[in-house]
């Protein structure tokens, strides 16, 4: 129960929501979310909803071992490579599910940049060339 003299933080809302929908079926979840929105209105906290949904999705991912990743390539990536990349990320993070956002960026010339959680694996040609030129210069 939120009290009257302490504001509820977005994180606390998100945790509460996660806890309350655990092990519930679809119908029950719908009811809970309706109640949740009512609570936000009652507490005058609707402006926090964007923050809450962001934290909620990261908590949800953690809870269900979902890893979001972003793969940047110079050209469109083919199915086989994508599958092996997925495999690689699953091994690396121990996640149950991997979601991949593909992005094409001509600037990196070749190779890939893989981002997952807060880690970055930079295998792009652009970075390699830059590092090589730095090492020759020094």
């Amino acid at each position, binding site marked *: 129960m939120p009290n009257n003299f302490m504001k509820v933080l977005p994180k606390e809302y998100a945790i509460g929501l996660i806890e309350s929908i655990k092990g519930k079926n679809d119908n029950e979840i719908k009811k809970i979310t309706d109640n949740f929105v009512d609570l936000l209105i009652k507490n005058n906290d609707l402006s926090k909803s964007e923050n809450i949904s962001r934290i909620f999705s990261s908590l949800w991912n953690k809870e269900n071992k979902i890893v979001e990743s972003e793969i940047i390539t110079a050209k469109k990536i083919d199915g086989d490579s994508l599958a092996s990349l997925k495999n690689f990320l699953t091994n690396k993070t121990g996640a149950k599910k991997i979601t991949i956002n593909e992005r094409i960026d001509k600037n990196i010339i070749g190779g890939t940049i893989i981002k997952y959680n807060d880690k970055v694996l930079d295998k792009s040609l652009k970075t390699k060339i830059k590092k090589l030129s730095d*090492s020759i210069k020094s």
Partner: protein
Amino acid sequence: MSNTKDFIIEQIKSRISEYKADTAVKNTGKVISISDGIVKISGLSAVAMSEMVEFKNKVKTVYGVILNLEEDNVGAIVLGDYIDIKEGDEVTASGKILAVPVGDSMIGRVINPIGEEIDGKGKIETDKYYPIEKIAPGVIKRQSVNEPVQTGIKAIDAMIPIGRGQRELIIGDRQIGKTAIAIDAIINQKGQNMKCIYVAIGQKKSKVASIVSKLEKYGAMDYTTIILASASDPASLLYIAPYSGTALAEYFLDKGEDVLIVYDDLSKHAVAYREISLLLRRPPGREAYPGDVFYLHSRLLERACRLNKDCGGGSITALPIIETQSGDVSAYIPTNVISITDGQIYLEPDMFYKGNRPAVNAGLSVSRVGSSAQIKAMKKVAGKMRLEAAQYRELAAFAQFGSDLDQETKVKLERGKRLNEILKQDQYSPISVAGQVLVFYALINGFIDDVAVENVVMFEKGLLKYAEMAGKKVLEEIVESEFNEDLENKMKALISDYKTTL
């Protein structure tokens, strides 16, 4: 011509073959907010305390140091310009604890706290890095102080002697010669097998420029490094400056050398740390300083040490400087640092304005360990002198009221007046130990009693000059041999000879 072309191509080829692409997984985060040099970062889940992080933007790479680890964000300070860092910028962890480049090529240079040159004499080539924070050497590695640091200042070498590896605080109000004492001590280290580091924290650049030119004039830059975090630098640089200076000192220490390091001044350092702490929202305590301000200085000064022979036998002597506000030594920072150090040199405004310069107050100044490092002859004469000085102080206060004094008191007062004159010394004119011993010996044995008070300074200068010409042997003996009757007779003869020439 073709030769050089081939050579260049060969060089490039070898460089390319040497090059190994390292593509390790990097820990990254995003800037949530930046204000007053304090950055809040999300992500960076695997970052360590006081690890270096890189802020990448179009202009150049700026480094930061992690100071706060919280549940869902980390707080960092930016070392350098933070104007180009924007919200949402990418931050990568470097995996390295904050370290500064060190090396012999730093000697004679003016550098900033992260080891970059700022004197315009070109890039400094170094290949070693030392961590800024290091645990001080333990009990096993240490040894008690047994070698003196000759500051060349009579009042200090005689009454408040400093040993190699000691921490001696210089404390006093603004503008009464705290820096002057430190600079004189550095100048006098010429030929004494000592490396010097002067760390300027929050000083005016003009003041540092004049110090550099003075040190150059007296040839002291041959063994001195100046680390400057000026008043216009961000608080983060002021905060790391003394630690970075100590890192350089430890490089020389590890080579078994003796180092003298001056922190000028630690009150400004504490203020810079207070600024950072308050911006990081750490709770303020007394005088708004954070709770760990004592640890801030104790861990720094604990790194001053004298190592034993098995550990290289080097030493770091620290001369921290504290500026008091109108003589208030019982403020928070002064009491802290007084309790950490092995003694203090207290400079008094009253004495300074009366013309007793250096304005060292012999009553309030102490050196807890230095006397065991004095040379034998100095120990003998300084003991008697300290007694004379104490008696004079007592009598002078008492004699102000009455004019009828017995003969003995009069003699003591006259002697005291001359002692006061003897302790006066101009800036940038250090005196060798042997010279000091000779002058003090002349005083306590009554050779100066028949010289008028106004002429004492002249007499002393003449005596030193005469000894330099006619008594070189005696001066050498004072430093090297035991203080015995034979030597005493030689000194007496030398002083009497000089008096006949007057």
